[in-house]
C-alpha cells in the first residue's frame, strides 16, 4: 500500500491528465463522429463513399497503429506538433468512426413512416429533420454512442505510450518498471483510477438512457 500512499500526488496528476485527455477526446470524437455520420447519410455520393471509407479503414485498424501513424507518420511528411496533440488526434479519429456508426444506427432506427407522416402533414425537409427524425435518432443513439465514449476512456490508456506520457497508465508503468515498486498495489491503484472514470460514466449513461427512453 506504501506504493500508492507515497506516490499519491503522482497518481493524482496522472488521473487528472487522463481525465483531460478523455474530456477533449469525448468532445472531439463526438464532433468529428457527427461530421462523418453526416457524410455517411448525405445525399451526395462522394461524401457517402468518403464516410464509408473512413469508417471501414479506421474501424478495422488497431488504435496502436493509428497512433503510430500520427506520432511517426505525420512528422515524416513535415507535419510537426506536440506528441500530446498527435495522441489526442489519433484517439479522436479512431473513436470518431465508432461514434459515427452509433449515430447512424440511431438514424436507421427511425422508421421511414415517421418521415413520411411528417411530410404528409406538410412539414418541410428542415422541419421534419430537426423536429421528427433527429430527436428520435439521437435518443436511440445514446446507448451505443455512450458505450463508445466509455470504451474511449479505456482506450486512452494506450495514448501514453506514444510520446504523450504521464497519464495514469504511464505513471503506473514507470513506478513498476523503472522504480521497482511491487506491481500489485501500483496497478490496483491505476485500475481504481480508471474505474473512477468508467463506472460513473456508465452509471450516468444508464440514467440518461432511462430518462430519454421512448416506447416504440
Amino acid at each position, binding site marked *: 500500500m506504501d506504493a500508492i500512499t507515497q506516490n499519491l500526488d503522482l497518481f493524482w496528476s496522472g488521473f487528472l491528465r487522463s481525465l483531460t485527455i478523455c474530456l477533449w477526446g469525448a468532445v472531439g470524437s463526438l464532433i468529428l463522429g457527427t461530421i462523418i455520420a453526416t457524410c455517411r447519410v448525405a445525399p451526395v455520393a462522394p461524401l457517402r463513399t468518403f464516410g464509408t471509407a473512413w469508417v471501414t479503414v479506421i474501424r478495422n485498424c488497431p488504435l496502436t497503429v493509428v497512433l503510430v501513424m500520427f506520432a*511517426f507518420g505525420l*512528422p515524416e511528411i513535415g507535419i*510537426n506538433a506536440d*506528441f500530446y496533440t498527435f495522441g489526442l488526434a489519433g484517439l479522436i479519429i479512431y473513436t470518431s468512426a465508432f461514434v459515427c456508426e452509433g449515430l447512424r444506427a440511431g438514424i436507421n432506427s427511425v422508421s421511414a413512416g415517421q418521415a413520411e407522416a411528417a411530410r404528409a402533414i406538410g412539414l418541410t425537409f428542415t422541419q421534419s429533420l430537426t423536429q421528427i427524425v433527429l430527436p428520435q435518432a439521437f435518443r436511440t443513439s445514446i446507448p451505443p454512442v455512450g458505450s463508445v465514449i466509455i470504451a474511449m476512456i479505456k482506450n486512452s490508456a494506450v495514448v501514453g*505510450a506514444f510520446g504523450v506520457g*504521464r497519464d495514469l497508465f*504511464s505513471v503506473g508503468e*514507470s513506478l513498476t*518498471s*523503472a522504480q521497482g515498486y511491487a506491481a500489485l498495489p501500483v496497478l490496483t491503484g491505476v485500475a481504481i483510477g480508471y474505474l473512477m472514470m468508467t463506472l460513473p460514466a456508465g452509471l450516468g449513461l444508464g440514467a440518461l438512457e432511462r430518462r430519454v427512453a421512448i416506447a416504440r
Partner: protein
Amino acid sequence: MRQNRKAFAAALAVAALTLSACGSGSADGVKVADKPSFEAGTTMATISAAGKMKVGTKFDQPGFGLKGLDGKLAGFDVEVAKIIAGALGIKAENIEWTESPSKLREELIEKGTVDMVAATYTINDKRKERITFAGPYYVAGQQLMVKSANTKITGPADLKANPDQKVCSVTGSTPAEQIKPFLADPNQLVLFDVYDKCANSLRTDQVQVVTTDNVILLGFVSKSDKAFKLVGEQFTKEPYGIGIKKGDVKFCEFINKTLKDNEAAYTKAWADTAGKVEGAAPATLPEPAPCS
C-alpha cells in the same frame, strides 16, 4: 529463392561475419573450452554438463543485441555472452537466446528462465536486491545527442533554460530517470519503448534532444550522415553488468575471471559491434566489483 538467399547473406555479411565465424568454433577469437571441469554442484558444472546455455539479451538494441532479419543476433552483449559460454565449453550455436526487455530481466533470472542476462544492464542497488551482478564488463556514460545545427544545447545544464527543447529517452530506463533533475518541467521529457523511435523523432524535429548512454548515441550519430552530434560531457556512469541468480558468487567470480582471461576476444567483440561506430573509444575491461 536460393539466389535471393545468397544475395541476402552477402548484404548482411558485415553484420553476420562474427556470427558465422563463431559457428565454426573459435575462428574469431572466441575460445570454446574443450571439456572443462568444474566443482560439482556449481552453476558452471550444471551448464557445462547440459551442453547448452540459456542467455537473456535484448533483441531491439542496435550495437548490443539486435535480431537481424535472418533471425541471428548481433551486438556487444551477444559477443560477451558467447565468450562466457565458450569458457563453459558451449559453442555459440548451443546458446538459447531469450528476449529480455528491461522490465522482465530480474524476473527471468529469478525464475531460472535464463542462466544469465547480458542486456545493457546497468548495475544498481535496487536491482542488486533481487539478483547478483557479475562485472561490470563495460562502463557507459549518459550523454546528449542533438541535431548538428542545434546551438542552444551544449550540455545538460542548458536544458532548464530551454524548456522548448524536448528530450527523448526510453520508458523505464535509467537515463530517463537521471535526466529528470536537469529538466525545466516534466513536459519536456518524451518517452518511447526503443531509442530508435527517439532518433527518428529527432530527425523529424519532433524532439530536439535524445539522451542515453554515449555508445548507443554514437551508433545513431554514425548512421545519421553528420545530421546528429553529441554534446556535453558524459554526466553519469553506467556500469553494465551480467545478471545472474542472487547469491551465486562462484558463477559471478567465474564470469569475472573469464572476461579477464579473454581480454583480446573482449576487445575484438567491442571493435566488431558497438565500438565499430565512428568516434567510439576502444573498450577496456573495467576492474570487476566484488561478487556478493
